[in-house]
């Protein structure tokens, strides 16, 4: 029971990370659209977004990669221990 609860909490924390990252991407895109609308140096905003957005996505992907990688072993291990 507790194990499931913790697993769900872990999933939620990962989802929160992704929401954060996607939120930042949406925010930056919103600022770009404002700068295009106001003709206020949109090139600069686009330049920053090209660097910033991938950075955040990479960080979130690394976290997800580690989580998935660790969980895979954890699950198979706990299964074998149950069988044994």
């Amino acid at each position, binding site marked *: 029971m507790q194990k499931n609860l913790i697993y769900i909490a872990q999933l939620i924390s990962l989802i929160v990370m992704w929401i954060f990252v996607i939120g930042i991407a949406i925010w930056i895109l919103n600022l770009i659209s404002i*700068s295009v609308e106001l003709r*206020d140096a949109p090139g600069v905003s686009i330049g*920053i977004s090209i660097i910033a957005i991938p950075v*955040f996505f990479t*960080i979130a992907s690394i976290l997800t990669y580690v989580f998935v990688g660790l969980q895979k072993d954890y699950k198979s291990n706990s299964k074998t221990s149950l069988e044994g």
Partner: protein
Amino acid sequence: MSKKIDYRNEIDATLYKPIYETGKGFYITVGIFLLLFLWALFMYITQVWFGLGVTGMNQPVSWGFYIVNFVFFIGISHAGTLISAILRLSKAEWRRPITRMAEVITAIVLAIGGLHPILDLGRPDRVLNIFTVGRLQSPLLWDVTSITAYFTASTVYLYLPMIPDIAKLRDKGGKFTWFYKFASWGWQGTEHQKKVLNRAINILMVMVIPIAISVHTVISYIFSMTLQPGWHSTIFGPYFVVGAIFSGIAALLIVMIVFRKVFHLEDYLKKVHFQYLGTLLLIMSLLWFYFTFSEYLTGIFAAEPHEMHIILYKFTGPYAIFFWMMVICNFLIPVIILGFKRFKTITGVLIASIAVVIGMWLERLNIVVPSLANPRMELTVGMYVPSIVEWALFIGGISAFVLGFVLFSKFFPLISIWETEEGRKESVKEVEKRVKSYLPGGEIITK
């Protein structure tokens, strides 16, 4: 705690001790710094209530302590992640007991420093405007973006190498086991898990270095993008980065020496660590001097009136004492102490580090205030004396750092246990193998 947790038989019992045993010192420290922090919070509420008039800022010195501390704290935050990433990347074996502390400093100080611009706002209630109508074209928003990126990256970079340690704590049981279970992400130390973790750490550490450098470069851009004399300089980016790493190493050394004493980590933090980091500090000190020298020499030689005016003001004006103290603290003291073997003891390194931290703070002050006090319209010469509120918030910032660090040390080991173990088991062999691999005639040595 119902049953005593058995950690004494571990080789690294010293590292577990602070987590399972809470002494009087812990409560006293937390109490004192919590009080200071609450005092600062109260002062901040008065500032929000009455307006920024309660500070010492005015026209034309419209930025003061908050921006100085912002730059300073962010500078300190470079200690961590950057140094630990460089040491990991260069496979320096002596890094093992240092990296964790360095990364914790980064995460905590970055959070504190990153909030400083909000303290500085006249209308903090409108800070969310940067989401709805922000201008990415403004250097302030570059900061917001890069600090957020650095904070995310450095927190992840602190967290990932901590997973095996969290798993150790989980297996020990006791209080908060559910939390450690949650945070350990099912780590069991299998080969595959180790491979995954190592790969992730490797990617992150390569990524974190450019992010860290970008952060302080962008902070210098706040100043250098304006037309103000003394600020409008292309050297500012690298100058700030060097200063940041400089103050970061000093802060790291102070923290290491303090916790070595308090947690009795003498077995882990040996003299060699302080000597190596001390040498690094010495190099940064010389590098800092080189940058400062170039910055002022170009100004003095060309002698553009506005630029010259500010340089003279820095050298001889009302803030001259801070300028010369900066030179003493950042250059003379560290070079004398760290340059001679006789002074390069742990006490010596501590004195040099404290001097450097003070000196770097003074440097931030010398950058922000004199330029603002002498605007291009030479009409209004400003004067800036910080008020009690600004001092309170400065002390509050430091208290928040101490509190954060002490609380962290209560829940997690300050020195990476698994990396120490790994070092014990593998690194001697590995280093031998590595050295042999590149040493000409290495095969002969084996025999």
